[in-house]
């Protein structure tokens, strides 16, 4: 039960992308998402696709994990494609389906938009596939650091995130325990009309909430006993460091962007 428990979609690995500084990954993905919208020619799409696919290949994550990550968005991609196909009326008529005229411009537009969509999802899913949630938390804390000046509680937010991450498996184990205990007392979670099943969740949630509050109180006391008094003067064990490989990736990415802008309109 607990051994198969992986939070998020993280797939352990030791590829260069896994080892990149999470801040590098977030920055590059941010700009990638941005520049995808500048692509407008076949060649520019080819460059971006090559970059995305090369990244995916480098992670050595089995394709099935990547496909699984994309499943919820396939529908959206296909939907956008069809929408463009039937709504756009540019270029020449290339086919007719049930008295709907399909224009060449619509076909190109449809492919281009769904391609953008696909690239966006693919590259952003790489972040969660190759980075542990705690690394992402550290990166966010570091990148939001300037917001401290306007009294934004960056450290507290990051600590809250990391404590939540730490307690997710614990609370899941507890949920399972409570649901078994309640099932043994005759609560039926699996059959009956929706309304009945929704009602059956109450005896599951109430003890879970009560224990979560108790945990929170005890944890707060333990943290205080161990000398926690806010982010002031605190040092960190987990360290983020920009290495040569990060710089290399940045340079490579700059070339991709340059290539993109050179091949625009071709």
């Amino acid at each position, binding site marked *: 039960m607990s051994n198969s428990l992986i939070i998020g979609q993280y797939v352990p690995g030791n590829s260069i992308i896994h080892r990149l500084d999470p801040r590098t990954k977030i920055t590059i993905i941010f700009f990638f998402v941005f520049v995808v919208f500048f692509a407008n020619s076949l060649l520019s799409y080819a460059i971006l696709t090559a970059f995305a696919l090369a990244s995916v290949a480098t992670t050595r994550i089995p394709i099935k994990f990547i496909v699984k990550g994309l499943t919820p968005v396939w529908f959206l991609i296909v939907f956008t494609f069809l929408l463009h196909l039937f709504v756009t009326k540019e270029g020449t008529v290339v086919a007719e389906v049930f008295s709907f005229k399909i224009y060449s411009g619509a076909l190109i537009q449809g492919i281009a938009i769904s391609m953008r969509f696909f690239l966006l999802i693919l590259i952003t899913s790489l972040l969660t596939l190759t980075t542990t949630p705690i690394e992402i938390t550290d990166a966010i804390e570091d990148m939001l650091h300037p917001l401290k000046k306007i009294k934004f509680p960056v450290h507290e937010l990051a600590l809250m995130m990391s404590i939540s991450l*730490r307690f997710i498996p614990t609370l899941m184990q507890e949920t399972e325990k409570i649901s078994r205990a309640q099932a043994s007392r005759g609560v039926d979670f699996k059959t009956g009309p929706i309304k009945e099943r929704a009602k059956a969740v109450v005896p599951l949630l109430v003890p879970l909430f009560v224990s979560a509050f108790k945990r929170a109180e005890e944890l707060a006391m*333990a943290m*205080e006993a161990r000398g926690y008094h806010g982010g002031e003067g605190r040092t960190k064990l987990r360290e983020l460091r920009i290495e040569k490989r990060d710089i290399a990736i940045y340079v490579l990415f700059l070339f991709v962007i340059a290539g993109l802008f050179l091949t625009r309109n071709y």
Partner: protein
Amino acid sequence: MRKKLIEFRNVSFRYGDEEPWVLKNCSFEVYENEWLAIIGHNGSGKSTIAKLMNGLLFPQEGEIIINGQQVTEETIWDVRKDVGMVFQNPDNQFVGTTVQDDVAFGMENRGFPREEMIKRIEQNLTAVGMQDYRLTEPHRLSGGQKQRVAIASVLAVSPKVLILDEATAMLDPKGRQEIMRTVSNVRAEHALSLITITHDLREVVQAERVIVMNSGEIWDEAIPREIFSKKDALREIGLDVPFVAILTDELKKTGMTITNEPLNQEELLEDLWTLHLRT
């Protein structure tokens, strides 16, 4: 004469103005490098003592002196440097997402440099026998392992006193043994005072001195052997008398002369096999 590390002077405590007193006029000392056990049934005030020592609670009457400093709102951060505490629930005191993050937590709070943290993580995890689990997440550890990590986390900031507040109460017998063994090892290797708070008489055997609490008052203060001989009185205040002590009593009733008050099976055995040599 050993140096006094903790001193309770006529301490009384209650959780609210209308509430009954949880501690009534308690006075005692804890010395440097001493192993003190505090024992009592539920609600005898023993856990409140632990929280008072750490500034998690403040007394209404009396004063608490730790390492020459009175515990007040102003001094709690200094006091907490000296007093480390391990709580009852293994899960609810594990802050980090991995073992090493948890050990680092206390050091991070005190602003230790990173290199020092890495060194101390290694050292203290080895001391509790958890060095192979550095990157393991808490939900993959047993209760006993989590408590050992908790001990390592406290030791990492080198406190002068280590308080175990019912640290074994939620563990299975195996986990309990692990912790008792770890605690004796730690005691052998580190110069620190140890205060174990428990309701289990078997856990006071190794202590040098025992304080027995009953309804907020100090009921007795003695060495373990002396406490063990007061079986009936212990039973009256709601403590479970260990099997060895009961057996000794029964043997005595059959007319055997058992000289010592045995603390564990080995000692009783020692007494029994030499029985005929003596008579």
